[in-house]
């Protein structure tokens, strides 16, 4: 229930395997193949970035949330509502801009920071332009649609709580904590919240933030993550094995700041010790390392897609969506 993920509607009704999710989406597309052909849209992953992402391609939902100074947790809730909604309804049957604004309006109520419907509508219009319907009744009607498709399961569990709980236990520095927090924000741009429990995502975020910092001279995220994943896999298959060292080379780091200036240790060795201790702790706590590896890869490939998106992607995506909404008359 509300405090307990294990008996929550999220676990019982809104957690699915990757394969199941792919099948659901395939079936949604198959419902109206003509529309799918007539209105080419970005891939799910690209759309997801367009709707949700924080940086690379300043996204729609986040932009609206920022504009309204929405708390991150409420934003994450809205993002998950959007994602759940589109496992039930073909995107080409909807006005995604209206759906995003509606999910935010609903999330703000559920996260106890409500905003008046008129404010949400007018902010959404300034953000999304006139593709967003001007009348609050449209948003209110869409709210019925969203709640109905979500089966009224509106209480969601986010990884932030696990992160807060583990921060003292794992001796995370404030920098670790804020990096982990960012990685969790980024996980909302992926399908992970539909596939994995929130604590797994939190553990992945912590893992990434500590591991990536341990190799301040990394050139590519991918190499670091691969090394981290290898280290984790080694522990997963053989918990008593020594923790392999994480390669330390040259170049930039995860957060743009000097990663070697961490609070807990000055030396590289000390930092690698931290990685070792973290992995040991995970192993002792019987954390599902396979899941952590899978999540790590998902986050890393998100960053790759992000980086590879051309600057004009946002404009192109928006045009495609607006064209679809207008031509189909589904504003």
């Amino acid at each position, binding site marked *: *229930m*509300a*405090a*307990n993920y294990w*008996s*929550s*509607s999220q676990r019982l009704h809104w957690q699915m395997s990757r394969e199941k999710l792919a099948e659901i989406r395939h079936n949604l597309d198959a419902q109206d193949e003509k529309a799918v052909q007539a209105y080419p849209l970005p891939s799910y992953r690209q759309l997801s970035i367009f709707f949700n992402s924080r940086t690379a391609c300043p996204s729609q939902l986040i932009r609206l949330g920022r504009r309204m100074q929405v*708390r991150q*947790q*409420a934003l994450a809730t809205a993002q998950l509502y959007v994602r759940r909604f589109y496992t039930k309804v073909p995107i080409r*049957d*909807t*006005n995604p801009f*209206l759906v995003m604004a509606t999910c935010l*309006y*609903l999330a703000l*109520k*559920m*996260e*106890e*920071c*409500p905003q008046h*419907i008129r404010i949400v509508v007018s902010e959404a219009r300034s953000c999304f332009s006139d593709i967003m319907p001007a009348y*609050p*009744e*449209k*948003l*209110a*009607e*869409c*709210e*019925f*649609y969203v*709640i*109905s498709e979500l*089966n*009224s*399961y*509106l*209480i969601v569990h986010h990884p932030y*709580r696990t992160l807060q709980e583990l921060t003292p236990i794992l001796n995370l520095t404030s920098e670790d904590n804020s990096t982990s927090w960012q990685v969790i924000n980024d996980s909302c741009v992926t399908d992970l919240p539909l596939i994995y429990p929130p604590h797994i995502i939190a553990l992945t975020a912590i893992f990434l933030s500590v591991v990536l910092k341990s190799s301040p001279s990394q050139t590519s995220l991918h190499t670091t993550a691969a090394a981290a994943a290898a280290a984790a896999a080694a522990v997963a298959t053989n918990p008593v094995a020594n923790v392999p060292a994480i390669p330390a080379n040259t170049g930039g780091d995860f957060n743009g700041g000097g990663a070697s200036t961490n609070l807990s240790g000055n030396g590289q060795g000390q930092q690698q010790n931290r990685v070792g201790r973290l992995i040991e702790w995970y192993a002792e706590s019987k954390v599902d390392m396979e899941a952590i590896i899978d999540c790590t890869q998902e986050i890393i490939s998100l960053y790759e897609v992000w980086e590879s998106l051309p600057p004009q992607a946002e404009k192109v995506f928006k045009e495609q969506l607006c064209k679809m909404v207008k031509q189909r008359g*589904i*504003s």
Partner: protein
Amino acid sequence: MPPYRSKVRVLEKYQIIGFISSGTYGRVYKARSRTPGNKKEFAIKKFKPDKEGEVIQYTGISQSACREMALCSELSHENVIHLHEIILEDKCIYMVFEYAEHDLLQIIHYHSQNPDRRPIPETTVKSVLWQLLNGVSYLHQNWVLHRDLKPANIMVTAAGEVKIGDLGLARLFYKPIQSLYTGDKVVVTIWYRAPELLLGSKHYTTAIDTWAVGCIFAELLALRPIFKGEEAKMEKKSTVPFQRNQMQKIIEILGTPTPERWPDVRQNPEYHQLSSFKQYGDNLKAWYQQIGQTNPQGYDLLAGLLNYDPTQRLSAQQALEHPYFHEGAKLSLNAFEGQTFEYPHRRVTQEDNDISLPGTKRSGLPDDSIAGNRAKRLKEG
């Protein structure tokens, strides 16, 4: 987008038997499933659209309706009313709950109106109280504050199972983004309102619910509310009046709340109000004896639930472990076990059973016109 259409239609799925009650939220109907082979009974709560006019428009669902929908969908416990489904149809929200034949208000009323004022049998009181605490404990373990526990909100099924209902004011209290005080300023029907709330405390804790349980326990024993204060009406919309008369009723029975009994009492914003009250000693024991009670464990439990200090007040879990429940006859999960009489069934009227009408309140309906105590109490309580 195309107009929203519900996949399920209330009237196709349920046959409305009659009208049960109405409140600020909307109206409740008794219904029977049309599913062949499973003609179960349900209570359908229809939320009133926010604005009432000739043409109903979508206006956005109220936050309390959102909370109630979300919480009821999430909760699952034998002592919390079970939500069967929610139907969103024609701009209205219908929450379909399991049907409960009785509620505590009706049961208390039955006994208090009885010419010989026969008390509620102790086995029934014990069973009801234990099940109520069991449900409250479940809510609290799940970070849910009910905030409006009162006899009218506690249902009892024909099989004697207690079901906590009406989570319209309930909230999650896990690290709230805003203080629980903001938003809805006045919570909990005044007779069941905890002293810390009366004194303006902004910290809502589970103890406000256990205070209310203490009041309900007392009422089951006395057949009348233990602290029946008169509500001071809000004069200005922005300020919450100090409920002097309610505080007075509590002090007359429990005595003056001193820092010895309640170390943090001075921290309450309205603490200064207490200086203008006459001093009283603790008269709870005398009250308990005066209503004819003799069980010392019952008194001890009542005093624990009505402890002034919210931090010392018994939690629901602690109360469940109290010796009161573990002495004497074995506790039954059927509140009516061994009873030789039967409570009257819930009143259901036929005059106004058209659920498809807009939720506007019209005059002359049963909810406005039931003469006598019950209607008045429903309004006040």
